[in-house]
């Protein structure tokens, strides 16, 4: 597909539009990550390199203190992998919709797909039936490209502005606040509320675990809770039919 055709494609445009709802929060989070990289002593060129290659806010924020304290390379790697374990779960979801693409495309697109891409994607295609639908790959690509541009824009701005922003302002919390807004906008049914409450509780309770394994535990707990809820719902239905 030519660039022109890509930019005018209906599904690509919808993907871009849906992602841009989150544009401000994403840009702010990118900015904060950019500032954090430089302020941890990484230097401007290395920070830019990290931003363009790692492309994962949480993994970057987790590995920064490790790099700064000159921890062994394998520990940095291991903790980044643990934080990113959730993407392993997500990729099984993407497979349903992108499995038909050639492997090269699949992996290239997969590399760009972050948390928010999957969330927005699921919202947009909910109720369109299970399995692959026409236009889904283009929709995902549109969202992925626009997220990349906004994120890198914020991140590069943060790297360049870092020297001007004092550490005491605690701008790191802006990233948390933008995640909070994103999380609220995803709470659209009871299952989502239960998952969020379970996940928050588990993440706080398991915080003492090394390598931020609490994130993985929290996701597992939320998924297990939603499995149980679905089963309980079915049981209640069956009881209602019998009565």
């Amino acid at each position: 597909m030519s660039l022109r055709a890509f930019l005018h494609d209906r599904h690509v445009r919808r993907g871009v539009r849906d992602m841009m709802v989150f544009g401000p929060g994403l840009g702010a989070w990118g900015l904060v990550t950019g500032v954090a990289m430089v302020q941890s002593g990484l230097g401007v060129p290395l920070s830019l390199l990290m931003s363009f290659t790692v492309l994962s806010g949480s993994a970057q924020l987790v590995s920064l203190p490790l790099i700064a304290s000159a921890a062994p390379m394998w520990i940095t790697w291991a903790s980044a992998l643990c934080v990113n374990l959730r993407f392993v779960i997500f990729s099984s979801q993407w497979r349903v919709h992108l499995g038909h693409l050639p492997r090269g495309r699949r992996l290239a697109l997969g590399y760009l797909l972050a948390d928010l891409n999957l969330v927005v994607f699921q919202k947009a295609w909910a109720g369109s039936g299970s399995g692959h639908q026409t236009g889904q790959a283009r929709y995902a690509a549109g969202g992925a490209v626009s997220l990349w541009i906004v994120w890198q824009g914020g991140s590069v701005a943060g790297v360049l502005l870092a020297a001007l922003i004092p550490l005491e302002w605690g701008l790191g919390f802006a990233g948390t606040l933008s995640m909070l807004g994103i999380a609220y906008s995803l709470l659209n049914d009871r299952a989502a509320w239960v998952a969020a409450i379970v996940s928050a509780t588990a993440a706080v309770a398991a915080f003492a675990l090394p390598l931020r394994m609490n994130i993985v535990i929290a996701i597992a707990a939320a998924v297990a809770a939603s499995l149980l809820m679905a089963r309980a719902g079915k049981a209640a239905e069956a009881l209602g039919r019998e009565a």
Partner: protein
Amino acid sequence: MATFVSRGFFLWSKRDVQMPAALQRALQVAPLAAIVAITAPEIFLAHGELIATWRDARLLSAAAATAFYAWRPGVLGPLLAGLAVYMPLRLALGW
């Protein structure tokens, strides 16, 4: 590299990965759970301990962002409302 490996994990193989439909549905809450799991400790914990006082810039800031979201949903609005509470408390009062 870690990003590439994890995000491509289930996209590598040509064969279909079979999963029960119930598990597929339950996995749909995973992204939300991940975002909440990263966010919640940042708000409720300080140095690995639960914050025990309400006189905390982060708790009040998150409360302000929540209130703003209830009034006008979005991402930027709550972010600015939260920062408007956070920065003065932190800079002026040192909370």
